[in-house]
């Protein structure tokens, strides 16, 4: 009777210890295995270069409207606008948004034309970290204009597990 009692307890204890050890190992291994990739200022510059090409990037004209302090990075309201008469000879052809520290530098690219009437686009984006957002506009004359905004993100967009 006593022996019967004793044996299961010993195995149970060993089982618990082993389980805990295994859980610990998994707990450490998981974050290492899925360490999210992050864009760097260098990869953002590369992505911008891809859009702009050899052309010069001027500062101004584009406006980024984003809250400076963001509580939830999963849905951040973003409005980009560009001053332009939007006529057939002088309009905004495209606007692009890039981030510095999201896993991927590109956020959104839109194509506009004289029929757009107003070069203003709003959407909701994800931000993985406090970082710099850059918007670039391409004009019909081939010039590129950019502006940037710094944001502070309290809760980062979902890079954690499901």
């Amino acid at each position: 009777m006593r022996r019967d009692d004793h044996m299961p307890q010993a195995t149970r204890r060993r089982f618990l210890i082993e389980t805990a050890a295994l859980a610990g190992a998994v707990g450490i291994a998981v974050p290492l295995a899925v360490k999210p990739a992050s864009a760097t200022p260098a990869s953002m510059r590369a992505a911008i270069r891809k859009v702009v090409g050899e052309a010069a990037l001027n500062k101004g004209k584009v406006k980024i409207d984003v809250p400076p302090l963001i509580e939830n990075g999963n849905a951040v309201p973003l409005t980009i606008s560009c001053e332009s008469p939007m006529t057939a000879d002088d309009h905004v052809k495209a606007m692009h948004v890039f981030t510095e520290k999201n896993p991927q530098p590109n956020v959104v690219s839109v194509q506009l034309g004289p029929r757009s009437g107003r070069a203003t686009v709003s959407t909701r984006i994800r931000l993985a970290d406090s970082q710099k957002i850059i918007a670039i506009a391409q004009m019909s004359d081939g010039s590129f204009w950019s502006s940037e905004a710094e944001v502070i993100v309290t809760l980062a967009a979902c890079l954690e597990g499901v």
Partner: protein
Amino acid sequence: MARALINAPAKAKRGEIIEIKTLISHNMETGFRPDNTGKPVPRDIITDFICKYNGQEIFRAELFPAIAANPFLTFFTVATESGTLSFEWTGDNGFTANESVNITVE
């Protein structure tokens, strides 16, 4: 079929700049989130959005994983003539959705 919402004026004056708001239900899985086994959940996002006014393209957007779930896009166009505004979303895994609204221009 994903649910899409369009908010555009039903009536407009000729030459007026109108605002079009679109929203579509889609979870926009980024491809960067791990599942409970530690492997990343495969990417499943809407990649392109096109708006046509009587068959002519007036707005196009290329979306990336950094767009929040249930992509929301607001843009403008000039009301030129009565007709239809059609919207088309395409994405990963053969995702497509279409929606259209009528507009009367006086």
